């Protein structure tokens, strides 16, 4: 496999990639239901649950950069953000007895309820 140099941008739950001298991205990866894996030195890969053997590999300039990207990408999904919200909500509710989402008018929304969300 040939390594191509790309500019990569993480925007919400999408990873865009560009040829280094172009303004429009050539592609994007939706980062839901994916796994970020550390491969060999400076390298990480993204694979998706429905096609786990297909890996999108990225080689970084340094191990530190590699770790930064892995951490950022692991937190990049909407589903991760949603779980964070549910978690915080629960913590605050335990500490104060009040639901912090009430002030936003979203406390009844099914998507923020604790418990049985499937991944």
């Amino acid at each position, binding site marked *: 496999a040939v390594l191509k140099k790309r500019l990569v*941008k*993480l*925007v*919400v*739950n*999408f990873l865009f990639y560009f040829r280094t001298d172009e*303004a*429009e*991205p*050539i*592609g*994007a*990866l*939706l980062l*839901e*239901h*994916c796994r970020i894996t550390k491969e060999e030195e400076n390298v990480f890969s993204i694979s*998706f*649950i*429905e*096609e786990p053997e297909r890996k999108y590999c990225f080689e970084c300039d340094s191990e530190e950069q590699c*770790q*930064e*990207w*892995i*951490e*950022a*990408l692991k*937190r*990049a999904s*909407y*589903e*991760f*953000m*949603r779980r*964070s*919200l549910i*978690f*915080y*909500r629960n*913590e*605050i509710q335990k*500490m*104060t007895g009040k639901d*912090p*989402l009430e002030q*936003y008018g*979203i406390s009844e*929304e*099914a*998507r923020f309820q604790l418990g049985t*969300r*499937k*991944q």
Partner: protein
Amino acid sequence: MKLNERSLAFYATCDSPADNAGFLYKRGERHTAYHRRWFVLKGNMLFYFEERESREPVGVIVLEGCTVELCDSAEEFTFAIRFGGAKSRTYVLAAESQAAMESWVKSLSRASFDYLRLVVRELEKQLEEMRGGPAGGRGGCWQPPGSWKPKPSGPERSPERLPALPAVLPKENGCAVWNNVPGVDRSPDTSGCGGHDGEGNPRPPPLPPRRRASSSEAGSAGVAAAESPSIFCRLHERYGQEVARLRQDWLDRRRGPQ
């Protein structure tokens, strides 16, 4: 622009619960005829299918940087998803009842990742303020200041608009990039190990650095928040430490007979 379409289709059709689903009429782009489609909202993606039973969506609208508004239209129960930017289109949809229209407008206008991130940051801030006070001893596993690497504040984050390019290059996405990798790679954290049972914290943690005053404006979703350690990550790490220890034991045992 290439997309990992199979992954998108998987996300659309997998059995994770949808945030909203139902039939809507979608106005065509060139011809103003409406087509009835089955819509499924998951996260910040609005998928639409030709039929409810279709295996794959025929399209998707990414709900970032858009506004959702009611329409003044001859057609009943119409609303529009409008994007900024020169090349962007407006999607006109019509529901089958007043109630359905209201339900869709409400869920679509709060579907963006940006919105969710805003709420999460507010909750994070609330939690930090609660824990930073006299009850700091209950704070769990704070990282000692030496090991916490503040993110450089960098350029101001502007709200992202898809598909237009964002003005900045944010790598971290909603939570501050956490410098420490929880799990086997880390040496044991002295403030957290031993007797980790949720109630028995060994010693009061140092107070985290306060956020700058400018971050307290509602809606400033970015610069200062990027500098504070993510509370969720820390709490998650606290709960995960036992798992990390078990895993380390397991790995040690595996490596044992060498």
